[in-house]
């Protein structure tokens, strides 16, 4: 096993195909570990990790915490809502204060794009980006690709459509980088207002018709409409969005092939995806969650092995 080429996981853009392969290979081992009767290994017993979440999170935070605990790391978690950030402390000050308590790694979610990168240049700790604004969410993209690989054997040559709010989605951008690196073909699909201009320059195609996009693809990754990031109305109504871009069982069954349905969560049932689709056998949504723990264990383990 080789090493990661980076000391931080700031985004998929900063890593390479070899890193992804190494993370997947390591995650395979951890997936076996988390299916044992006793799901814990002592590897990181001398590592302390701080989870700093300036934005709300359920899945990602739990998944990271569980991954860290499965590796026997000491974990401190912190949500901005109950912290001195509200009293006007700067990001660097907050993190440096935490680091002076001898913390080796920081997992951070922040609403500003580039926050993780900024932190990595200003504090002495290994940084894992758990989502920075609408920029990147690397572990999500890794677990999405890992789930595709698990289901279809390989990511290379597969056709993936990312549907929904591409404009505000860090999951979309990280997925585009990760899937392209592994040789997948990508289309994005959604209302024109929610597709960033010039996205074609990333090498992806745009499709505004959901049926056409689904007929083309092997995998559909359905994204949530991120109302919390919207300052103006990007579409007339949620009902109209659901009619145009929501995936229901009738549409899914009318396709001439079985595609795989993914969703990074949280799901707005009845908007981007109906309940019967989310719970169908074509959906790998819960596999994604399980794989998330294995992927995060792999990322943390590999980064921790580089801490001096």
């Amino acid at each position, binding site marked *: *096993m080789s090493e990661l080429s980076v000391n931080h996981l700031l985004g998929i853009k900063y890593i390479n195909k070899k890193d992804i392969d190494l993370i997947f*290979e390591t995650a395979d081992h951890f997936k076996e570990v988390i299916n044992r009767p006793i799901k814990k*290994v002592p590897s990181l017993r*001398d590592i302390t990790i701080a989870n700093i979440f300036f934005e709300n999170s359920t899945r990602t935070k739990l998944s990271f915490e569980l991954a860290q605990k499965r*590796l026997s790391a000491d974990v401190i978690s912190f949500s901005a809502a109950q912290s001195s950030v509200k009293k006007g402390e700067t990001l660097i000050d907050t993190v440096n204060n935490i680091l002076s308590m001898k913390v080796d790694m920081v997992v951070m979610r922040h609403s500003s794009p580039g926050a993780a990168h900024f932190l990595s240049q200003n504090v002495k700790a290994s940084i894992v980006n758990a989502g920075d604004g609408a920029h990147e969410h690397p572990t999500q993209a890794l677990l999405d690709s890992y789930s595709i690989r698990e289901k279809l054997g390989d990511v290379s040559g597969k056709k993936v459509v990312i549907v929904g709010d591409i404009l505000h989605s860090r999951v979309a951008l990280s997925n585009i980088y990760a899937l392209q690196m592994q040789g997948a073909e990508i289309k994005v699909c959604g209302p024109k207002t929610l597709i960033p201009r010039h996205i074609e320059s990333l090498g992806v195609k745009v499709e505004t018709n959901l049926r056409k996009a689904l007929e083309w693809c092997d995998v559909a990754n359905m994204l949530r409409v991120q109302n919390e990031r919207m300052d103006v109305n990007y579409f007339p109504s949620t009902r109209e969005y659901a009619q145009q871009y929501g995936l229901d069982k009738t549409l899914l069954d009318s396709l001439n092939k079985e595609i795989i349905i993914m969703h990074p969560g949280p799901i707005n049932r009845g908007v981007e995806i109906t309940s019967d689709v989310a719970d169908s056998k074509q959906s790998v949504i819960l596999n994604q969650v399980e794989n998330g723990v294995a992927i995060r264990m792999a990322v943390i383990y590999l980064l*921790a092995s580089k801490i001096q």
Partner: protein
Amino acid sequence: MSQKVLLTSKEVNIILHRLACQLIEKHLDFSDTILVGIQPRGTFLAERLKELLEKEYYISKIALGYLDITFFRDDFRRTSKPLEANKTQINFIVENKKVVFIDDVLYTGRSIRSALTAIQSFGRPSEIELLVLIDRRFSRHLPIQPDYRGRQVDAINDEKVKVCWKEQDGEDAVYLINK
């Protein structure tokens, strides 16, 4: 670099038969026993012994698993080269079973220490034994001794014991390599 033959293919074969017989003496029909090959190099010996027990001594249904100890090692972040993980495959619960760890060389004892911790993830065995092909007598770091040994070897720290298996290296042999 010079190398000396410690065991030839014929000698390895004789030792394998002896070890198989010693296992039978203790474990009889192996109904409560599980063989566990320690990854990466102990798996060849474990497979060989299983094959021998089944084909030559007609003991059927021997449970064999592979245990990887990478995540249980005590030198994480202390070695210059990254640790390489291997597959663990233990498709049974070891609760109240007799477990026999099988490895090719016993040296510092640290791998076995890790294996003792690792196996606990699969339950609480009633007893654990250790079988090794080569027992390097010097330089043990921990109070760990084998229950079954193929050959005891006096090798100093500069020397390396290399176990070759037909499946991977093209021949069965054990060499003492002087670095």
